[in-house]
């Protein structure tokens, strides 16, 4: 059992926030008619922890020098980052409905200069850890206290650039860098262990001189505790392998890689026909919301 750094009220509030964020995510994807669903749902709990508990940041002053940096490496799950940012106050929630539209600040994959609060541009996989390492290196060179958080997918560990950066971060003892891997076991063409086996992932990172923590990526307490633990590691970077369920929260999508790249209303019809998918997704999330309420009574 993790040693909790959260009071029950706060924990409940974060769990409820994650559920709300998931519901808005479904709505924005339906409106956009394209985009990824499974990955963003899987990372809803991690993003909630980041924007509502872990990050030292100021949504009203996104360029604040002392802010922690959050770099999204697997840019395709940006819808969940956008929703979390809107909830945190970076921009009006109504703007979420502009996802992927012409002249929108919410580009299909995130673009640094389009939306205040984004630290970088991403989409092509495998380059976020390198950028994060570069930022963390500057912080150490210049004696800055802020931390760098790099959110990554498991699939992008097929890319050499990721491992180049892992080696660089280990060499430079970037203890101010925390990487969080969405270990959901799926990528576009199928299961990661079929496409290009990543295991033993923990041992790989340990061999690259990283401190490794594994958590249940849907357990807010474990995520928060792991992030705090990483702050106490002072000779190496930390990677948190967050075991997640793709599509988490929408029961009929969970663990189905066919939901990687489709929004509700455009996805596979193996549970519900296209016209029912959005409605059923929201229904599933509301049920989950009810469970959160009862668990904290």
């Amino acid at each position: 059992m993790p040693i909790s750094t959260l009071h029950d009220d706060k924990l409940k509030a974060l769990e409820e926030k994650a559920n709300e964020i998931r519901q808005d995510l479904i709505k924005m994807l339906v409106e956009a008619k394209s985009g990824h669903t499974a990955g963003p749902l899987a990372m809803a709990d991690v993003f909630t922890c980041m924007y509502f508990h872990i990050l030292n940041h100021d949504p009203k002053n996104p360029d604040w020098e002392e802010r922690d940096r959050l770099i999204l490496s697997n840019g395709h799950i940006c819808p969940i980052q956008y929703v979390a940012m809107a909830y945190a106050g970076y921009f009006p929630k109504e703007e979420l409905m502009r996802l992927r539209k012409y002249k929108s600040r919410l580009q299909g994959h995130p673009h640094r200069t389009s939306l205040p609060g984004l630290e970088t541009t991403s989409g092509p996989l495998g380059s976020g850890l390198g950028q994060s390492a570069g930022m963390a290196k500057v912080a150490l060179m210049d004696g800055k206290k802020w931390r760098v958080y790099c959110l990554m997918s498991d699939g992008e560990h097929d890319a050499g650039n990721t491992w180049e950066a892992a080696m660089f971060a280990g060499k430079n003892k970037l203890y101010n860098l925390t990487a969080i891997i969405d270990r959901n076991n799926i990528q576009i063409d199928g299961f990661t262990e079929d496409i290009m086996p990543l295991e033993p992932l923990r041992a790989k990172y340990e061999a690259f001189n990283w401190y490794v923590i594994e958590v249940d990526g849907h357990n807010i307490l474990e995520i928060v505790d792991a992030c705090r633990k990483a702050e106490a590691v002072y000779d190496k970077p930390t990677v948190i392998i967050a075991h997640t369920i793709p599509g988490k929260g929408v029961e009929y999508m969970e663990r189905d890689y066919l939901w990687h790249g489709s929004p509700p209303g455009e996805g596979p019809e193996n549970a519900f026909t296209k016209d029912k998918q959005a409605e059923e997704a929201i229904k599933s999330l509301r049920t989950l919301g009810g469970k959160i309420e009862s668990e904290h009574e």
Partner: protein
Amino acid sequence: MDMINKNLNLVENIFDEDKIEKIKTRDGYGKGLVEAGEKNPNVVVLCADLSESTRSEWFKKKFPDRFIECGVAEQGMATYASGMAAEGKVVFISSYAVFSPGRNNEQIRTTVSYNSWGSESGKEINVKIAGAHAGISVGPDGATHQALEDIALMRVQPGMAVIVPADVHETQKATVAVAKRPGPAYIRFGRVDYPVFTTEKTPFEIGKAYTIIEGKDATIAACGSLVYKAIIAAKQLKDEDGIECEVINSHTIKPLDGNAILKSVKKTGCVVTAEEHQVMGGMGSAIAEFLSQNYPVPQEFIGMHDRFGESGEPEELFEAFGMGVSHIKDAVKKVISRKGK
């Protein structure tokens, strides 16, 4: 010497091919890095296991805390540089042009150029890519190491400046100039000793082409190692055939100094472009794109014609692949013959 533009403060013995001093252009990069580092404490230099041959080692000796060795990892290097630049550093990444911007092209596109695109003033991604050992003159190493497509790769990226200096002094000035200029830039230079025809007093400004020799019969626009060959070709054409060539040092390929080219071809009515690069997508293409829209004239292209190089001595390869003085002279005669047809 009468032919030479006196305002450029070029060397006195410019036409003396044997006695003119010859220095490696990459030495200019090493000196330029140190100079840029002295002027700006935010300048940092990254290198991918080639610090001696790229001369980034000279910066390392002076500023060890601002030099970062990346190992043989050009893709990684581009991304570390992007992250560092996002935090306010002016980051030079140094390697051979085949590897950077060759191997790491997509990382440069996404994390440098596009990442900088649309930046408010002061928030640009200041990554400066230094491609050493570019061109056929890498020589004995062979085609794997002879970057002949790097100008094309870089000039199609929005916001990327592309500069190909002609000798050691110009390389030093270009290095200092790109450090000061906001946004991404690519600077390209070669491996071998090359005639030093400019001096410390010769002006250099990004985006400003210089007319080295004035002439009325044909324009030769050259960059990098072929500028000096163009100067010699122009001298011989004058002496042997009475043909007066205008020689332009077109060191900045992007942003191209269209006005200088336009002014010259309006006088001469034709142009030969000369570069140590594929004729597709390089400096010649940039000039052709500009002139076809503004003032179409006959053009001949000196460069590699859609093939790979091979091992050999640099001068031998310039001759073998049509980038020698004689080839420039033949191209001038041919382009003049096409005028008015």
